């Protein structure tokens, strides 16, 4: 599945969340990650986030899509993220 993760987390935890998501997803812009995940990795990401945040204060939204093709993506401005296998 393809996921988009958006978060608003208190400053003392924001870096930890970013660092965690970096291991699975592509950084798009501040507080936004996206990428392809397997079912198992999705559960890992969800459980990991749950542990990191303070549920009374922070909020994380995960948008789940069937696949990348199910999404129409449009960028306005400069895209600072990278993807692709050939470097």
């Amino acid at each position, binding site marked *: 599945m393809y996921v988009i993760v958006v978060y608003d987390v208190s400053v003392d935890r924001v870096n930890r969340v*970013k*660092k965690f998501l*970096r*291991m*699975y*997803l*592509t*950084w798009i812009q501040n507080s936004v990650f996206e*990428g*392809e*995940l*397997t079912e198992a*990795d999705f559960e890992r990401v969800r459980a990991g986030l749950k542990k990191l945040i303070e549920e009374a204060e922070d909020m994380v939204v995960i948008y789940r899509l069937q696949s990348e093709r199910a999404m129409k993506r449009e960028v306005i401005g400069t895209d600072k993220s*990278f993807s692709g*296998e*050939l*470097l």
Partner: protein
Amino acid sequence: MKKRNYYILSDGHLKRHENTIYFENKDGKRPIPINTIYAIYSFGSLTVTSQSLSLLAKEGVSVHFFNRHGFYTGSFYPRETLISGDMTVKQVQHHLEDKERMYIAKAFVEGSVRNMEKVLSYYDIDFNTDEFLGMLYDAGNIPEVMGVEASARTEYYSHFDGILKHFKFERRTRMPPENEVNAMISFGNSLLYSTVLSEIYNTQLNPTISFLHEPAERRFSLALDIAEIFKPLLVDRTIFHLVNKRIINEDDFTGELNGVLLSDSGRRKFISAYNEKLNTTIKHRSLMRNVSYQRLIRLECYKLVKHFLGVTKYRPFVIWW
């Protein structure tokens, strides 16, 4: 397939930061999420830190290195996590017993010959499969089996000029390849060896104990064995696609080392077509689900595992579509 192969063609550094991998070059810093990496293929001059290697090893990611001419130099084969003494003993047993070794070696060649036939039949070209299989049946020792493989391949290659709408092939030359098609075959084969090696890493097989090739002959020789079966499907078809669709042309090659090699742009084109091939999926008949061509290599390893353990007899993969 959620994990991907990454191909690094530019020069740069591979670093570890925030428990993930960063690739840095003159264009900037590019994070590669560690959990998306299946294997890394490096072609440029790459500086790797030991921290990044330890992270890659922890995640079981192998890194394959090629020199600036595109020739395979070696692999970073992380500490194995899937070890089974029992498996290794059985694998060695099959190697030592002549009858068992011949069976597997012949199966590899049979698979290779049948796949050559399949590739040619797409272009309505007849191939003397039965003759080669007969010779294979009569072969009494490993050099003879290798001989059948070689003559089948020579015959197979002789049809290339009829398929290719562009470029001349003539005959197989290597070290160095003398023309464009040979350059692509050499490059494709070394890519395939490392792809197979990555798959072997993910099984309990020992990559050094081979059956068709002599184990002492070269590096990870089991990868050479299994690659034979997949060369027609993964390498040769990629070449036909690139040449006949005119994706690759003279500008994508350079004359070097008294031969012809893929240039930077050529390598880029080849790799992206090759990677697309690996990710192509096909409905598997007995698994009843879609599998990628890359996955077929892994399934081939599993079949060997089952053969060694005496569960099911090994039959080589033959293109069924």
